């Protein structure tokens, strides 16, 4: 005769019933098995078959164990006593958690987590985010002058508008520490820095002295000279009318620096230097963040295209046309050549990175060639005319405005990847929080198993969080992997824009502009806070209801 109590005890395992109730339950179930066995044997069934039939009455012992506990105690089994697939007593849930944590060892996964857009944050204001005043002070005290100078330059280049003063002060210090960084003066020379007492002129003069062959400081100077005086006047003019050109041409403070800009041998907005500095600073800070790098290139100030276009039109339509009418074709050609050459320099400076700058560079050259052609033909300079004609044909063919828009949105796979990364990233964040809460609950319940029935129920339900976290981590990793590249491996801003740009653009666009601008920025955290309060209120009401009616299984 089998030892029925032993069988039941072994099958049930741990059953933490109070006041010796477990022994009673074991005895009662053992009697059920024994009686069924005896009855089968009495019917002439052999012992082995009788034993099988008897045991068949309780097929799922784990389920029975849970139901017995629930029936006797009126609550779920303590989470540490459960034996389900993902219960904390079994290895799968810890293996899932371990594997999820193991993803953090993969640089691609860390990068995927880091690039996820955070609601409410300004992606262009990386300066103060990376370098707080305290962080800068630490760098200063470290004694590494070069690194400190680069950090200050980074702050000067990438601070939000409200931090203009901090940016200007940082630029001052950075250049004092390393004069090779004087190019950052181009950023703080903008007349749009409007804090009290700010004057861009000393910065422009410094830049001109440091880089005299560059057209950029002169364009900044032209803007600085008229910025405050013209603020109220811009609205009076339509940009297309000759009145505006004439009014601007009559301003020596604007016309003269623009003349110098068009005569300067090169134009450089320091894109290459900015990219190199940003990348080095990010690497020094241990931030493998292509998103910051690319957003910084997007936020990079470019020379004032309107001013350049305006001055080119003055040369083409006013100076050149007047010279032609006055019978001075050489003067007219000089004006037209000046525009064409400036267009060439602008195109070189753009390096196909700044799309609008590319368009303007091409258009200026086209218009200048179109103006030059009839003058040259009238003068019988056919050879020169045919060269200009060839140049014009090439410019028309290469017109960036006629090319398709850079394929940010057209590639379905990148759009899909961006969405997968966004959604799985959000799930990873959420499930990581839930898993952390679950671990805390488990620790609390291990310390005191009868701490709270609600907590036990919650911890039991949240056992699925680690496997789900592992799944979300795997999806995030696989979704982002094709775009994961250490920032050190991008050769230039152009390379970064072509390789990483379409993906990150789709990631931002997937958030939907209105949604991210209005809802996410203003309502995300209030909504989270509201949900937490609602949850707390619901739990409180439920606890109160439980206290008033301890046994809620009573029939209505």
């Amino acid at each position: 005769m089998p030892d029925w109590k032993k069988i039941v005890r072994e099958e049930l395992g741990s059953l933490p019933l109070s006041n010796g109730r477990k022994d009673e339950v074991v005895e009662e179930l053992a009697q059920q098995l024994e009686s069924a066995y005896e009855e089968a044997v009495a019917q002439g069934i052999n012992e082995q078959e009788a034993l099988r039939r008897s045991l068949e009455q309780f097929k799922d012992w784990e389920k029975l164990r849970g139901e017995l506990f629930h029936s006797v105690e009126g609550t779920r089994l303590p989470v540490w006593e459960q034996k389900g697939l993902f219960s904390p007593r079994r290895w799968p849930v810890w293996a899932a958690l371990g594997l999820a944590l193991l993803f953090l060892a993969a640089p691609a996964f860390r990068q995927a987590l880091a690039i996820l857009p955070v609601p409410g944050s300004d992606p262009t204001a990386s300066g103060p985010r990376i370098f707080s005043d305290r962080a800068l002070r630490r760098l200063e005290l470290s004694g590494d002058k070069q690194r400190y100078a680069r950090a200050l330059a980074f702050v000067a280049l990438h601070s939000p508008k409200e931090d203009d003063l901090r940016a200007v002060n940082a630029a001052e210090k950075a250049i004092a520490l390393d004069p090779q960084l004087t190019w950052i003066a181009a950023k703080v020379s903008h007349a749009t820095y409007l804090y009290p007492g700010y004057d861009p002129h000393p910065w422009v003069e410094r830049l001109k002295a440091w880089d005299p062959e560059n057209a950029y400081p002169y364009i900044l100077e032209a803007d600085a000279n008229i910025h405050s005086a013209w603020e109220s006047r811009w609205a009076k003019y339509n940009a297309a009318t000759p009145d505006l050109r004439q009014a601007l041409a009559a301003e020596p403070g604007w016309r003269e620096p623009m003349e110098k800009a068009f005569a300067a041998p090169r134009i450089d907005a320091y894109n290459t230097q900015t990219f190199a500095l940003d990348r080095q600073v990010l690497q020094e800070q241990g931030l493998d963040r292509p998103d910051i790098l690319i957003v910084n290139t997007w936020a990079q100030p470019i020379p004032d295209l309107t001013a350049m276009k305006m001055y080119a039109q003055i040369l083409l339509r006013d100076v050149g046309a007047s010279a032609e009418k006055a019978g001075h074709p050489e003067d007219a050609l000089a004006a037209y050549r000046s525009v064409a050459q400036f267009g060439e320099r602008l195109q070189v400076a753009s390096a196909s990175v700044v799309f609008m700058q590319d368009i303007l560079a091409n258009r200026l050259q086209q218009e200048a060639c179109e103006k030059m052609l009839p003058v040259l033909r009238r003068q019988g300079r056919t050879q020169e005319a045919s060269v200009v004609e060839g140049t014009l044909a090439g410019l028309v063919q290469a017109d960036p405005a006629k090319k398709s828009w850079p394929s940010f949105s057209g590639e379905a796979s990148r759009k899909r990847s961006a969405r997968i990364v966004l959604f799985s990233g959000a799930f990873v964040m959420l499930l990581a929080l839930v898993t952390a809460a679950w671990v805390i609950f488990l620790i609390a319940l291990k310390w005191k198993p009868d701490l709270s029935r609600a907590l036990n129920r919650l911890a039991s339900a949240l056992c699925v969080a680690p496997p789900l976290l592992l799944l979300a981590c795997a999806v995030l990793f696989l979704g982002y992997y094709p775009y994961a590249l250490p920032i050190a491996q991008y050769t230039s801003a152009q390379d970064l824009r072509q390789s990483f740009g379409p993906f990150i653009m789709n990631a931002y666009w997937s958030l939907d502009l209105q949604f991210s601008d209005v809802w996410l920025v203003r309502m995300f955290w209030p909504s989270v806070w509201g949900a937490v309060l609602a949850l707390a209120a619901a739990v409180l009401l439920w606890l109160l209801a439980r206290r008033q009616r301890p046994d809620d299984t009573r029939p209505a």
Partner: protein
Amino acid sequence: MAPTPDTELKKGNAELLILALLEDKARHGYEIGKLIAERSEGVLRFHIASLYPLLYRLERRGWLKGEWEPAGGRRRRFYRLTHTGRKILGEQRTRWRAFSGAVDRIVEVRHA
């Protein structure tokens, strides 16, 4: 998730069956399981694995009282109705009669 009406009916039926079997005399679990199968002539099948949790639940609610008593040379846990259990049985029986009567009146009508 709210239980389906079908599940509620089965759960209610099981409770009613057990309360009814204990109306006249105290019985132990094995006997209750056998009686359900015998008296329903095999129509009602009651999973033994569900019987004991149900007995304990009814006991916790105060509808039954279980006590160890000697029987056939061993001790067995006998269950008997409490005052509350008897009251509940009356209510459930009334509801069941109303329900089964209503079903009968619909099912047994022959249309001319």
